[in-house]
């Protein structure tokens, strides 16, 4: 099977938390490459990262329902719905100039393929020697 291409045409995916207060749309290919991180918080939240520049993400509703949690370097802004607890997107430490969307929170019907790539976020300094992830396009 052909993997996702960086030049693939992009479409609009929609998604959100469980209770429906938090809703967003994100522009990305139909075939997604997402990251499965083993760090202390990603493991507990079962998160799958689709990382995009800010320009490709739009929060449609629910800003007032979001709770922010920060720890360690306090670079990332972990956001979750205060009503249902679901973390549907957040500002990641690897890309504080972008957003990470939880691929598990995308609505059904637009994702044609999900390729999951492991990331060793537990050993952050070794995985990201420059202190952050690759620039986003």
């Amino acid at each position: 099977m052909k993997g996702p291409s960086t030049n693939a045409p992009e479409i609009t995916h929609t998604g959100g938390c469980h209770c429906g207060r938090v809703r967003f749309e994100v522009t990305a290919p139909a075939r997604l490459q997402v990251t499965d991180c083993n760090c202390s918080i990603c493991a507990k939240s079962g998160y799958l990262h689709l990382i995009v520049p800010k320009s490709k993400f739009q929060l449609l509703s629910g800003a007032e329902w979001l709770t922010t949690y920060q720890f360690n370097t306090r670079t990332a802004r972990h956001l979750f719905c205060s009503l249902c607890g679901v973390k549907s997107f957040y500002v990641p430490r690897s890309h504080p100039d972008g957003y990470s969307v939880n691929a598990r929170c995308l609505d059904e019907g637009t994702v044609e393929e999900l390729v999951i790539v492991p990331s060793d976020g537990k050993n952050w300094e070794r995985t990201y020697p420059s202190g952050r992830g690759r620039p986003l396009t």
Partner: protein
Amino acid sequence: MASRSPQTYRGSCHCGAVQFEIVTDFPELTTCDCSICRRKNALMVKVHETAFRLLSGSEALRTYRFHTRTAKHHFCGTCGIYTFHRKRVTPDYYGINVFCLEDFDPAGIPVRATVGAGMP
């Protein structure tokens, strides 16, 4: 069939406000494809309420209910982590997020996929 001898395991959310312990012999782990477990990629062990003890964090826990409102989905109000929930079909049991357990290695424990999405 139990895959290990019964043991006490400690668990917590990410920020540490919610602390709990369970006693289990890990007969199995379960996944679920329902609308909320899918979002949390839940991998759970089921324990009776008598084998569960909340050590701290009752004031931090939030509860979310939906649909039949039988299950009580708990998460930490500070860090958002789903630690455990009261189960819908067997409300005297908890489903525990095994990723919240300390020093837990799932190797060798059978995993059963449950079909939550098909429940009325």
